[in-house]
């Protein structure tokens, strides 16, 4: 073989491991550097998340680093110019932080709630939440309220684990996989790795989604469901399973509250609550004594079915009895849900019976002895190998919380929760239902909050409302309008703050959140709200601070801009206190290490938070004399402890780094992580890997490392007493806070069914569905999902603009041909865009790729870039408020339980644009470039070294010529 030249001069290259941040997946990467330039970014084969692979986004990291949209220095809106006009002056960091600190100090000393701090593409909520708590404002949340809260809350209030990032399908053992409403997700690479494993093993993959894109492409069966009806489909599965007696009797009796007793006393404050004895122990019906007995006493032979009367005369029914009475009803029979869901009855029945077959006829076992919480010894782990995953298409509907519960109910009936082949929790999950953290309500000047701003209400008394019943939070989370808004309601903040409802604020800090563009509903009006002034000529929202690394549309509407570093330029942590990177069988966390020196006057936001918090005298960060407790972010991460032995990073603790999970601070922690490829992995012993909700050894360990408050069993709540308490409040029967407004009462009655339920999405309930015949949803393409990189020079070559996609036959029947321009109208607004026809689309649904459309001039793109000239946002059509009803206050367009933004409830009509009517509408002004932003190159020729060509010898040319 002819010798090849040396292509790479490895001597001038170095490799650093770190953690990707091109999206929320947080894969381990190996970055090959050549000088201060990136030669190659690849997946780290040792990393627990991605095991060496890397997606399109991760592979485009170089172009994130080279983006001309990178912010270069702190900016202040020029005095005398209008917000949104794009007139900024560069200022120094000293000036920027002095200005910010002065303003915040005054707020903190007077009325801390006047600061609202909301974060978007965040991966450091443990830090920002701590910061807000120390500041003393309850007005903090991340973007979960418009992303995933329905999934997180749906799971945590039922199984103690959830879809989203808190669990994974058991890719190695599942024989049947049902994917609900997911084109792409946070776990971008793990899902891809997992699907291939499933297919290689011959497992069946069923995808439920109105649109056949993304993962649906390789599904064995695609169910093109009508949007917003997934809950009904899931409950029809429940109906079929019950009718055919396909449910796991033992699993239900042992691990759920199905045997617990529900008080049947209509019209009283006890109705629907669970029966307890004098010491508060939940009761079951003891078949031996024919009397109530404690659920925790596993010697009791508890009835799963039946209605009984106690000697005191209390009428009770088991949870399971209520459950079967509800779902055996013909309302849930396949033939009665077929038309609404768009899935025919025989398919519904077949899918349910296929799952039953896998669960009960293809049961698997793992021969590892384990012990449950009650001391019962088991020879092996029994697996019901049906796995599911669900996310955005479920989450983004106003019935998403109950729909998520309905899907969990299917899993639980099959006994397919945290067992081999099913859906597995990722540590620190599972947690007790629900985690014992209550949202903070009380604030005082210069005083940290007594509890975190976000938590888990267990009844009306936990709402964050004042004595009048009015919301205390700016986003109205945890008010009667959204009682279990566990992730806050970021999508309501600007609207509420500008309107002074429930009150006005002074300063809004946003981190990496594009609230003047694709992350807000009703974008055009939000831009107007941001510019709105009161009678004194002051902005209704006086001061907006944005921290971002790039020139987003939100930067343009900010008063103070704090430029962040890129992910390759900073130190950072992905903590178990936050949204960890754990795998089902290992508790994991990780760090980022700076690989590249920033070439701009930028600072990591983490560093800025520590700095500002120290200046403000936060007790966690500063000593009484005002001196800093920690010299910088890295020092804070090493030495701050949440509780003795527990900090942001669980690995390499103890003086010499010899301890895992718990231990004294280790001064060499960062180096230890770097040596271990920037991650830490604690693998669970084999007997602690399944049934962790009831696994004695796991539960003991989880308590010992601070995951859970106690080591008792995690009992799955098929029936939610918490929801029933809210329902009682709606009926005026609850012994505690009661809502005053009729609309609040009615919503509690209608939507807080203690058993999983389905109802028509709220927008559909209020509009003329004949006038707005189509459902309209959106998705993110895999190469941009959860990224901040629509402007990325490589990724945008894959897609620069979006179309409105329609079912081909349906569109043609309306005279709409491929590439036609159409008007799309909702009850709220209208847009004009271009249509593309496809087969893989539910005929009653139109959809588009989200966040491809950009405002002209933003993100370092040419003012005529297709992103702004042909790309469009569906957001204009979506109101943050439900259609109004005479005599009723305006209500948020959100799930009435969790406050989750109901993006996908949208209904629209479509009409052909007149001849000559082309181009997208609405159009926006071009954003001005920022001072000293680099020019955009007309050609890119990125390379880290001069190419080494392989020369073909002339003798070979002569000998073989062109013919081999």
């Amino acid at each position: 073989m002819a010798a090849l030249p040396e292509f790479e001069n490895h001597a001038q290259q170095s490799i650093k491991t770190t953690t990707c941040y091109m999206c929320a997946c947080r894969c381990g990467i190996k970055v090959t550097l050549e000088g201060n330039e990136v030669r190659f970014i690849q997946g780290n084969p040792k990393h627990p998340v991605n095991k060496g692979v890397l997606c399109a986004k991760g592979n485009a990291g170089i172009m994130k680093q080279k983006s001309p949209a990178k912010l270069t220095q702190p900016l202040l809106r020029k005095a005398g110019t209008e917000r949104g006009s794009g007139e900024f002056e560069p200022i120094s960091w000293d000036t920027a932080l002095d200005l910010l600190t002065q303003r915040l100090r005054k707020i903190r000393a007077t009325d801390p709630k006047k600061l609202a701090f909301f974060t978007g593409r965040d991966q450091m909520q443990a830090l920002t939440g701590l910061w807000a708590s120390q500041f003393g404002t309850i007005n903090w949340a991340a973007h979960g309220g418009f992303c995933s809260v329905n999934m997180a809350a749906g799971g945590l209030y039922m199984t103690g684990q959830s879809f989203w990032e808190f669990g994974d399908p058991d890719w190695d053992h599942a024989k049947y996989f049902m994917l609900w409403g997911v084109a792409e997700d946070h776990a971008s690479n793990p899902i891809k790795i997992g699907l291939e494993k499933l297919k290689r093993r011959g497992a069946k993959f069923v995808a439920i989604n109105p649109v056949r894109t993304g993962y649906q492409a390789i599904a064995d069966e695609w169910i093109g469901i009508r949007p917003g009806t997934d809950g009904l489909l899931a409950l029809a599965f429940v109906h079929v399973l019950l009718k055919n007696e396909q449910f796991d009797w033992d699993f239900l009796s042992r691990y759920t509250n199905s045997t617990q007793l529900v008080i049947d006393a209509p019209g009283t404050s006890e109705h629907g609550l669970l029966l307890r004895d004098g010491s508060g122990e939940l009761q079951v019906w003891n078949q031996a004594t024919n009397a109530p007995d404690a659920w925790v006493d596993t010697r009791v032979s508890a009835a799963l079915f039946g209605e009984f009367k106690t000697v005191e005369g209390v009428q009770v029914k088991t949870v399971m009895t209520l459950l079967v009475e509800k779902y055996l009803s013909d309302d849930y029979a396949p033939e009665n849900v077929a038309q609404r869901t768009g899935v025919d009855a025989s398919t519904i029945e077949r899918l349910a019976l296929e799952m039953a077959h896998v669960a009960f006829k293809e049961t698997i076992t793992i021969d590892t002895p384990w012990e449950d919480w009650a001391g019962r010894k088991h020879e092996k782990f029994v697996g019901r190998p049906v796995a599911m995953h669900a996310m955005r298409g479920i989450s983004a509907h106003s019935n998403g919380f109950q729909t998520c519960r309905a899907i969990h109910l299917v899993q639980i009936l099959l006994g397919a929760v945290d067992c081999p082949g099913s859906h597995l929790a990722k540590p620190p999950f599972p947690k007790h239902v629900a985690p014992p953290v209550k949202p903070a309500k009380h604030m005082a000047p210069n005083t940290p909050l007594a509890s975190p701003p976000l938590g888990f209400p267990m009844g009306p008394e936990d709402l964050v409302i004042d004595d009048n019943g009015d919301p205390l939070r700016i986003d109205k989370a945890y008010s009667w309008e959204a009682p279990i808004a566990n992730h806050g309601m970021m999508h309501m903040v600007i609207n509420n703050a500008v309107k002074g409802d429930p009150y006005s604020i002074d300063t809004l800090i946003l981190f990496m959140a594009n609230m003047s563009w694709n992350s807000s509903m009703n974008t055009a009006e939000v831009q107007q709200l941001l510019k709105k002034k009161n009678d004194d000529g002051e902005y209704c929202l006086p001061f907006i601070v944005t921290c971002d690394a790039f020139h987003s549309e939100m930067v343009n509407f900010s008063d103070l801009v704090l430029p962040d570093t890129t992910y390759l330029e900073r130190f950072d942590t992905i903590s178990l206190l936050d949204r960890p990177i754990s795998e089902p069988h290992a508790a994991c966390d990780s760090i980022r290490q700076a690989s590249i020196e920033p070439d701009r006057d930028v600072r990591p936001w983490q560093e800025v938070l520590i700095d500002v918090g120290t200046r403000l005298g936060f007790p966690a960060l500063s000593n009484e004399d005002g001196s800093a407790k920690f010299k910088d972010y890295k020092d804070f991460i090493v030495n701050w402890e949440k509780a003795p032995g527990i900090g942001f990073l669980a690995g390499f603790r103890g003086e010499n780094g010899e301890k895992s999970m718990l231990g004294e601070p280790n001064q060499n922690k960062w180096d230890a992580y770097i040596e271990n490829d920037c991650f830490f992995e604690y693998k669970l012993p084999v007997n602690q890997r399944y049934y962790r909700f009831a696994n004695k050894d796991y539960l003991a360990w989880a308590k010992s490392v601070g995951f859970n408050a106690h080591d008792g069993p995690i009992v799955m709540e098929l029936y939610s007493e918490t929801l029933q308490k809210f329902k009682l409040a709606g009926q005026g029967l609850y012994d505690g806070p009661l809502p005053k407004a009729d609309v609040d009462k009615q919503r509690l009655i209608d939507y807080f069914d203690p058993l999983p339920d389905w109802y028509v999405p709220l927008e559909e309930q209020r509009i003329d569905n004949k006038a707005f015949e189509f459902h309209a949803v959106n998705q993110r393409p895999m190469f941009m999902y959860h990224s901040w990189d629509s402007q990325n020079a490589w990724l945008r070559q894959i897609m620069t603009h979006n179309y409105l996609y329609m079912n081909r036959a349906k569109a043609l029947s309306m005279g709409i041909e491929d590439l036609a321009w159409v008007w799309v109208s909702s009850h709220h607004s209208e847009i004009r865009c271009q249509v593309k026809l496809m087969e893989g689309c539910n005929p009653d649904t139109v959809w588009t790729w989200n966040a491809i459309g950009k405002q002209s001039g933003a993100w370092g793109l040419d003012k005529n870039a297709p992103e702004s000239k042909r790309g469009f946002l569906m957001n204009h059509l979506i109101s943050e408020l439900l259609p109004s009803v005479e005599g009723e206050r305006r209500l948020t367009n959100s799930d009435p339980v969790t406050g989750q933004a109901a993006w996908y409830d949208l209904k629209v009509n479509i009409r052909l644009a007149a001849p000559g009517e082309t181009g997208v509408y609405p159009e926006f002004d071009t954003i001005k470039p920022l001072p000293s932003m680099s020019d955009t190159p007309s050609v890119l020729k990125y390379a880290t070294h001069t190419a080494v060509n392989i020369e073909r010898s002339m003798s070979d040319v002569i000998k073989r010529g062109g013919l081999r």
Partner: protein
Amino acid sequence: MKLGLVIDLDTCVGCHACAVACKQWNTSGTTGPLSDYQPYGEEPSGVWFNRIRHYEVGDYPTNKTINAPMSCMHCDDAACVTVCPTGASYKREEDGIVLVDQSKCMGCNLCSWACPYGARELDEEAGVMKKCTLCVDRIYDENLPEEERKPACVLTCPSHARFFGDFDDPQSEVSSLVRERGGYAMMPELGYQPVNKYLPPRQRPKAPTVAAKQSEDSGGLIAKWLKRQKDAFNQLGEG
């Protein structure tokens, strides 16, 4: 040796990871840089060796979506090589990789017209033709860990839909996959004998169901379950 790729259409989700990994590696590779024109402008485009095409097959509701990554097939009888007037395009004797000697190419485009797979890309900035090199600058680099001596596209593919190996070796992974999964060449009728092969989507047999029971009303079912519960309890008492 006959090196090439196997691409599994059963697991390719169309995520474009392979395309971007290819771009990333090769822009600093042996034929780099891979120029991008108007990278932030009105009509962004550039040199890519691997592009993903998405197709729909069949009509709603029995439609299927196919994602098909396309790059140089390293044909045994490569038309691009045959037509090259300067000898720049050639197929290596050692391993069958089709390459373009950048110093001999005059950018005439003949090869690009000859290639039915659209695999050749003229770099307008460099004025020369570029194409997939099978990462020849990775696969033989002994300074890389052995398991990483693969094309960047194969290394990165999250759904493990890409395989690299020697088709002359019947025991190789690529040969076995083609044999076992019915791997096929794209457009073989053109006669260029493409080396790369595609694996068709797996045909899954119908999943079994438990037998549907005769419909019973809810009262009857609950009565039955109450009886089952009672029987079980009584049995427990006897035991």
